[in-house]
């Protein structure tokens, strides 16, 4: 047990910190979402990250990654958050689609997709949720039919982040309507520029539109875009979801670290003597440390076994609830000014963060579903359904 950086990690961290100080565009610090003018900057920023070798740190070298152990990804995410630099625009490609392709893709698929994910030439989105299927993902109804040498896709996806800017989509759909529901699923890569794909942005609680509906009408998808087997989509989707909760915890704790620092500054400035505020600030600071060190334990587990442990669900669950409490406390401290949406000062910052935090307990698995997962898979309790 040693919580200090080893010499190589320390060197990596120092180089990265210097690089970030010189390279993060001022316009992108504390970014709210990839909309409007931020988008063009986002592509350039992601290319810069990739050019410096910071995309795909843990990917094998043969696929253009740096082949580093997981701890480098952890340091990267921590430092990125500290610098308030935005993530690579292609988080879904890098964190979910890429690892899924590495695990289940054929050599030609790896050759075709992975380099463009790293370079941010291709932005990916995830088409899993549907109007009728959210938590119960295995019930998706988007139809996938094999007709000759290609698949035909018909249906609707919803809440799809980045779809408005995406080049490709990982899509989970139904290829068999009879039999056990998990066995009728198929996983495809869909080119978002294909005829019949229509994206309609959805405005969210904050006013911004970062997620979308996607309509598929007789979309032809080449047969070689199949990932895994026909009817084997569930297993592939599980790989995607396990990566959603892998080292992601470090990004969450990093973001929370920034939020706690801002909260402490806010409390010092505006409510320094209030004992109730102090108690709540201290609670969030403790929660942050608890998440940080839970991540380090998860990292040790990941490096030893190669597979993310249940700590990933713990981090997501607690981070989301902490972020909601913390941002709520911040708008309470700010007071009625927090209700003015104009401008981009302190009040506007917290107003946006507080509203955005409501999505945290819904996206990437609701808190209720995460508790089910912990109860059933970690504690071995009987299924509730």
């Amino acid at each position: 047990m040693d919580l200090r950086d080893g010499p190589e990690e320390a060197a990596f961290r120092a180089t990265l910190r210097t690089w970030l100080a010189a390279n993060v565009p001022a316009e992108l610090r504390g970014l709210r979402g990839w909309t409007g003018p931020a988008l063009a900057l986002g592509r350039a920023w992601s290319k810069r990250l990739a050019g410096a070798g910071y995309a795909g740190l843990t990917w094998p070298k043969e696929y253009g990654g740096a082949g580093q152990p997981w701890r480098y990804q952890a340091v990267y995410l921590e430092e990125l958050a500290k610098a308030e630099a935005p993530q690579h625009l292609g988080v879904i490609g890098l964190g979910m689609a890429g690892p899924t392709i590495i695990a289940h893709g054929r050599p030609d698929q790896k050759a075709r997709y992975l380099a463009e994910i790293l370079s941010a030439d291709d932005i990916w989105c995830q088409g899993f949720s549907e109007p009728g299927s959210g938590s119960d993902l295995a019930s998706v109804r988007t139809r996938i039919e094999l007709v000759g040498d290609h698949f035909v896709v018909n249906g609707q996806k919803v809440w799809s982040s980045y779809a408005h800017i995406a080049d490709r989509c990982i899509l989970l759909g139904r290829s068999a309507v009879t039999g056990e529901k998990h066995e009728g699923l198929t996983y495809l890569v869909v080119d978002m520029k294909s005829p019949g794909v229509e994206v309609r942005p959805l405005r969210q609680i904050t006013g911004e539109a970062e997620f979308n509906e996607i309509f598929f009408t007789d979309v032809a998808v080449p047969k070689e875009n199949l990932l895994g087997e026909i009817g084997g989509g569930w297993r592939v989707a599980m790989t995607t979801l396990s990566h959603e909760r892998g080292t992601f915890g470090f990004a969450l704790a990093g973001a929370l670290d920034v939020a706690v620092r801002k909260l402490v500054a806010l409390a010092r400035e505006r409510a320094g003597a209030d004992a109730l505020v102090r108690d709540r600030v201290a609670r969030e600071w403790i929660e942050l440390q608890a998440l940080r060190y839970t991540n380090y334990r998860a990292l040790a587990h990941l490096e030893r076994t190669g597979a993310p442990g249940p700590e990933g669900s713990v981090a997501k669950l607690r981070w989301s609830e902490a972020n909601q409490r913390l941002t709520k406390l911040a708008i309470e401290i700010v007071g009625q000014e927090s209700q003015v949406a104009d401008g981009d000062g302190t009040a506007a910052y917290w107003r946006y963060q507080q509203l955005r935090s409501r999505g945290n307990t819904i996206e990437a698995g609701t808190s209720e579903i995460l508790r089910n997962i912990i109860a059933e898979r970690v504690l071995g309790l009987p299924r509730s359904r």
Partner: protein
Amino acid sequence: MDFSFSPEQDQLRAHARSFLEKRFPATRFAEIAMSEDGWDRASWPELARLGWTGASIAEAQGGAGQGFVEEAIVFEELGRALYAGPYFSTVALALPALACAPDLLAKVASGGLTATLAPDDPVRQSAGAKAKGAAVEARRAGDRWLLRGETDLVPDAGWVDAFVVEARGPDGIGLYLAERHDARPLIRVFDTVDTTRRLGRVTFDDDSARILAAPPAATAIIASTRRRALAALALEAVGVASFALALGVEHAKSRQQFGRPIGTYQAVSHKLADTYVETELARSLAYWAAWCVAEDDAQAELAAVAAKAYAAEAAVAACERAIQVHGGMGFTWDHPLHRYYKRALWIESFDRSGAAHRAEIAQALVAG
């Protein structure tokens, strides 16, 4: 960066777990807790033989030459087994001061000396004692010292061979060792809610003592003792919480109502999931604190305070949820749960409340 235990440390834990499960099964809790002594005295030489009393004591003094991380593992496992005996008092509270005297360390390592701390912390003095202004005073008498005064809420006061006393001498607070002999000093053991860790009042009436650390050095030892004690209790609390969770999960799987195991109901299973999550977070904080204490890291103080505040509350909540999940059976004297609950409450009350600890952290954050 490596937040995992070594194979040797994992082995220590596995060994401790199996030893304690055999030696102190839940079926013995009531017998031990309600006995005159409140602990199984024969267990102390066994703990010494296992190398636990001397885990962090140098090999030259008969110890195992390890550190606080190894002790932390033992604390967690002792908490899980609800061990009744002065390990916390001796190893967490007394050891830093005893380290001033190599002969005493050798005695602790061999199992020949148990001790506790008689503190001079006004926060911990009961109202009565405070009104009398009765901190212990130390007065020189030749090459010995004489102690006079009264100190309250001393853990395991009735069980130990010696007291490390924070007493006021001519130059301020120093640390003294008063060994117990011929019914001196005067001890009154309180009827304590957690009968496995009883609190007592110790009254010195010109009792002879040996100085361990004079005022300036004593201050640093007292501060490091507090960090050790808080981290140790955080670990015990993690042990308590994990055992309460295990009991709750077991019951939720086996107890049937409305024709199904009660664990199928989310009102039950989500409570247990929350206990799991909080226990894991408490564990992360406690291991962090243990590492900081072992390394004398600059963050040791904050880490220990945060870990104790969080883990104590997590342990109390874990027991409360487990009691609820057990229904009427959880409310009985015969079920072991209430003993864990009472230990958790004991831990929560030690030093300061969670709210006071958070105030300490906030002071460092907001003012710092």
